[in-house]
């Protein structure tokens, strides 16, 4: 063979060999060719890899997605967003309330307030069916007690840790009330019955006069005159086993709580569990959780995945540390190999994690609700957005979150089915109310009225968003649908500003007392949607005659230097919200300091009161009523111009269906149903892929 022939034949042969391989690869419609098992595998993609597969330590969404399949909490949210038991079968919430007895005080009948006198007085009122004692089940006396605590004698200075002093206090005897349900107004009502006894209580009276003055205020906090202790008793599901066969029990719940609170573990979940006073197992199948104070949003945190104690307790960690040649004293749960090969009680067990490639799970045959239909679950890491989309078209991932501009094109594609819903978060323009211009509600309202939100939704978000009028997710009951959105009315906005004292000057700019209405609107750079909103708002306001400058700042500077320090006029931002009614951190006037979340400086005494009461209210009906009132108040005050809530659209292969057991013992295919949030994955354990798309209802072979 001559060199010439070789030079022609070699590339030809290589090309042909490579191209023919195409015929051995399955198409989207024919994924099961050569591999029927593909129908029992579910593949989800993610841009980023998981970081730590331990629900008490993870803080990123990729880890959370896997943890939610491997681990399970005591409770979760049902289809209608109410709570439903998982590892807990049922629960009861009641309250224990404590009232300090101060013998130097007198009761309404003139007798000294001794423990016995108080009890006698209250029992008499109870026998007379006094309404303030309606919920009281039992009244007991607790004797005086010594309380030891560490107090901060000198606050921490840069480079110097806080100086700590150990103090022992004598707590006077207390009355303990057991209430059938939580009642935040219990003491207020009781106070009326006792003729102002509770109001007059002053904890400083119980302190040792020798205590240094620097410590007195802190010490007084340790002896609250009246204390609410909400209690949750969970009855646990029996016979649930971890993936290694060990049975789940109340010790695991206690252990999970302790893992979070152990400072060595640096858990990001500490704020959720800090209000918990104690977690006590009551036999293997019940656990009693007592809170230090009223904190209703804390209930939801028991959806946290439960860890297996026998794998991570002190003994197990010690063994692991020694095996790895590490110092057992410094070895924490965070260092354990468990975080890369987790064991939980969830519907899928962990198999393998290849960094930056995939995490592989297999179904838990022993799952208490019956094994999932999918035999395997892959969490596949694809670092690029466009290739993520194309792997979905090629059938090698099973779901894809469409970008707003793709939705209209993809929702009619016969290969896919789509689900969409409103996001829980919202976008807004926030006004720094420390600035004099924004202290007038008419100015804030006028600025909101000048912006055509519909235009933003239609052109910036391709219609994939809806307006919102307040701080709660639209799907929750806390959102008051009767609140009217701010109208788009530039003329009305101008009238409002004139009412507020602004007049156009010769140059066409609005001014008051010789000072023009001028400010700077900022946001973080790199977010095209926010930049577009900024431009639209600037344009709308300039047409009114407001001098607006805009500025996009790099994220770290934007957050740390401007927003957290309150150093801005107006800001375009968004919140992602949870499903609870608690807005304390975002809108309460006590949360306006540096690095706190009420950075716009919103303050309204009525709203403050509502926010405190909402987080203390355990009755859903009353909580909803208060939340709606709060929504109306905030909408009235307009600390933000509420812009929109985004819409997500999730696409799935049309061959995915649910396979559910029928009444006669056979299995049948059923359509996918969505929760109140629009999410289709609620029944994920029932999902399966069928070889070809089916219409419903279809009976499958058992």
């Amino acid at each position, binding site marked *: 063979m*001559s*060199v*010439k022939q070789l*030079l*022609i034949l*070699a*590339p030809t042969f*290589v090309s042909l*060999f*490579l*191209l*023919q*391989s*195409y*015929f*051995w*690869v*399955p*198409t*989207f*419609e024919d*994924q099961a060719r*050569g*591999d029927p*098992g*593909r129908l029992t*595998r579910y*593949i989800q993609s993610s841009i980023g890899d998981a*970081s730590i597969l331990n629900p008490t330590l993870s*803080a990123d969404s990729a880890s959370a997605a896997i943890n939610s399949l491997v681990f399970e909490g005591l409770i979760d949210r049902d289809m209608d967003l109410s709570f439903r038991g998982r590892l807990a079968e049922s629960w009861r919430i009641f309250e224990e309330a404590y009232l300090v007895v101060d013998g130097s005080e007198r009761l309404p009948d003139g007798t000294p307030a001794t423990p016995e006198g108080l009890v006698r007085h209250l029992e008499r009122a109870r026998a007379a069916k006094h309404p303030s004692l309606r919920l009281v089940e039992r009244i007991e006396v607790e004797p005086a007690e010594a309380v030891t605590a560490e107090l901060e004698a000198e606050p921490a200075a840069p480079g110097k840790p806080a100086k700590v002093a150990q103090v022992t206090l004598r707590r006077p005897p207390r009355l303990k009330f057991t209430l059938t349900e939580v009642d935040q107004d219990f003491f207020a009502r009781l106070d009326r019955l006792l003729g102002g006894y509770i109001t007059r209580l002053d904890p400083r009276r119980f302190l040792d006069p020798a205590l240094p003055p620097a410590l007195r205020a802190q010490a007084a906090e340790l002896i609250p005159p009246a204390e609410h202790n909400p209690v949750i008793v969970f009855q646990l599901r029996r016979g649930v086993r971890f993936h290694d066969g060990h049975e789940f029990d109340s010790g695991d719940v206690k252990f999970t709580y302790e893992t979070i609170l152990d400072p060595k573990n*640096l858990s*990001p979940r500490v704020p959720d569990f800090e209000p918990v006073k104690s977690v006590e197992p009551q036999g293997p199948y019940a656990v009693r959780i007592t809170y230090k104070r009223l904190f209703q949003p804390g209930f939801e945190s028991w959806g946290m995945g439960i860890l297996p104690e026998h794998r991570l307790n002190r003994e197990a960690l010690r063994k692991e540390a020694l095996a790895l040649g590490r110092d057992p004293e410094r070895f924490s749960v965070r260092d354990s190999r468990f975080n*890369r090969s987790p064991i939980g009680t969830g519907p899928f067990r962990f198999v393998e994690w*290849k*960094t*930056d*490639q*995939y995490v592989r799970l297999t179904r838990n045959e022993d799952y208490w609700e019956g094994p999932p239909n999918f035999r395997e679950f*892959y969490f*596949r*890491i*694809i*670092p*690029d957005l*466009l*290739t993520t989309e*194309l*792997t979905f*078209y*090629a*059938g*090698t*991932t099973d779901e894809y979150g469409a970008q707003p501009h793709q939705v209209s094109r993809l929702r009619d594609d016969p290969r896919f089915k789509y689900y969409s819903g409103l996001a829980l978060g919202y976008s807004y323009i926030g006004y720094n109310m420390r600035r004099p211009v924004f202290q007038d509600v008419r100015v804030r309202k006028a600025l909101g009225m000048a912006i055509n939100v519909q235009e933003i939704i239609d052109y910036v978000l391709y219609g994939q968003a809806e307006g919102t009028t307040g701080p709660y997710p639209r799907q929750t009951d806390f959102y008051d649908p009767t609140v009217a959105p701010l109208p788009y009315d530039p003329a009305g906005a101008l009238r409002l500003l004139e009412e507020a004292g602004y007049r156009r000057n010769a140059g066409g700019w609005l001014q008051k007392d010789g000072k023009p209405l001028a400010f700077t609107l900022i946001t973080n750079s790199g977010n095209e949607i926010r930049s577009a909103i900024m431009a639209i708002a600037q344009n709308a306001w300039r047409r009114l005659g407001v001098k607006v400058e805009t500025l996009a700042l790099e*994220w*770290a500077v934007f*957050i*740390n230097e401007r927003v957290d320090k309150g150093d801005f006029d107006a800001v375009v931002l968004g919140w992602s919200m949870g499903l609870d009614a608690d807005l304390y951190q975002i809108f309460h006037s006590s949360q306006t300091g540096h*690095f706190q979340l009420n950075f716009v400086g919103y303050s309204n005494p009525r709203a403050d009161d509502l926010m405190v009461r909402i987080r203390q209210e355990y009755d859903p009906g009353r909580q909803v009523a208060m939340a709606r009132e709060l929504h109306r108040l905030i909408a009235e005050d307009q600390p933000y111009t509420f812009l929109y809530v985004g819409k997500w659209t999730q696409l799935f292969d049309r061959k995915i269906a649910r396979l559910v057991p029928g009444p006669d013992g056979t299995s049948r295919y059923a359509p996918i149903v969505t929760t109140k949030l629009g999410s289709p994955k609620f029944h994920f354990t029932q999902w399966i892929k069928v070889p070809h798309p089916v219409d419903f209802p279809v009976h499958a072979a058992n």
Partner: protein
Amino acid sequence: MLPFLVRTAWKKLWTLFFISIISFGIIHLAPGQPSQIDPLNPRFTPQQLERYRQAFGLDQPLYVQYARFYQQFFTGELRSFKDNQPVFGKIVERTRNSLPLFILGTILIWCYAFPLGIATAVRRNTLFDRSTTVLVFALISIPGFYLAYLAIIFVVQTFQVDVIGLRTFGREGIGPWYAMMDRTWHLVLPSLMGAAAGIAVLSRYVRSQRLAVISADYVRTARSKGLDEDRVLYRHALRNGLLPFVTMLGLLIPGLIGGSVIFETIFAWPGIGRLGYEAILARDYPVVISINFIAAVLTLIGTLVSDLLYMLVDPRIRL
């Protein structure tokens, strides 16, 4: 010969030593912290940050860190900050993934560039030559990632088959032939994309090299002897023209570990290039510095190999 080898090896060891210091220093000069330390996370208190720095040994003076690093590196104890896996195992595994891509890419470059270069040189200034020139310069100037996206979109939309990753993801339990062809198919696009610029550049080299040789005296002599054109072109001219390309073979070696960051990221290919790139983003110092060091070693070996190869093919050179 032997003295030459000893001398070179000694020189290269010194070079390596300085490279190790520079690469260690540069990564520590770069702003940012290992990924588990997230300064933007408000939940990170300064104490927690300090604890992480201690755990990673980042609180030690740089020269101590340097000594500890290379001690761990040579004993194979080095572990990634990111997932606590041994660095060496990770590099071996990722290199193994990159290897087919690298080999096929090289085959494609050399298979296509030579015929193309020779054909354009022989048909100089014809329509074929000019249109090829346009195409080649287009390939050189179009950014590779853009071309890759176009190719992926075209293939997936038209043929509805997967092209991302090592193989059709989630397809298991298939026969060995299916499995092999599946892997082969997944090699086609990334290696072609990776090779495109290489083909373009190398074919230009070949073309100009050929043009220089074709007008050389000894070629004219061969022609005047009455040899047929093929024999002149492919025997007499080609042999001498190959010389510069032999040295290029040696320089290919460091490409083994360099991989291709862009194409491995676009094609979700778990190769060494992506490992390095993601390690840089996460400030995973052990992985970054190790890859850097190994790449330096391979580069030095590569230059040595090309020196030796040159000596082998060109009898005029004696070291």
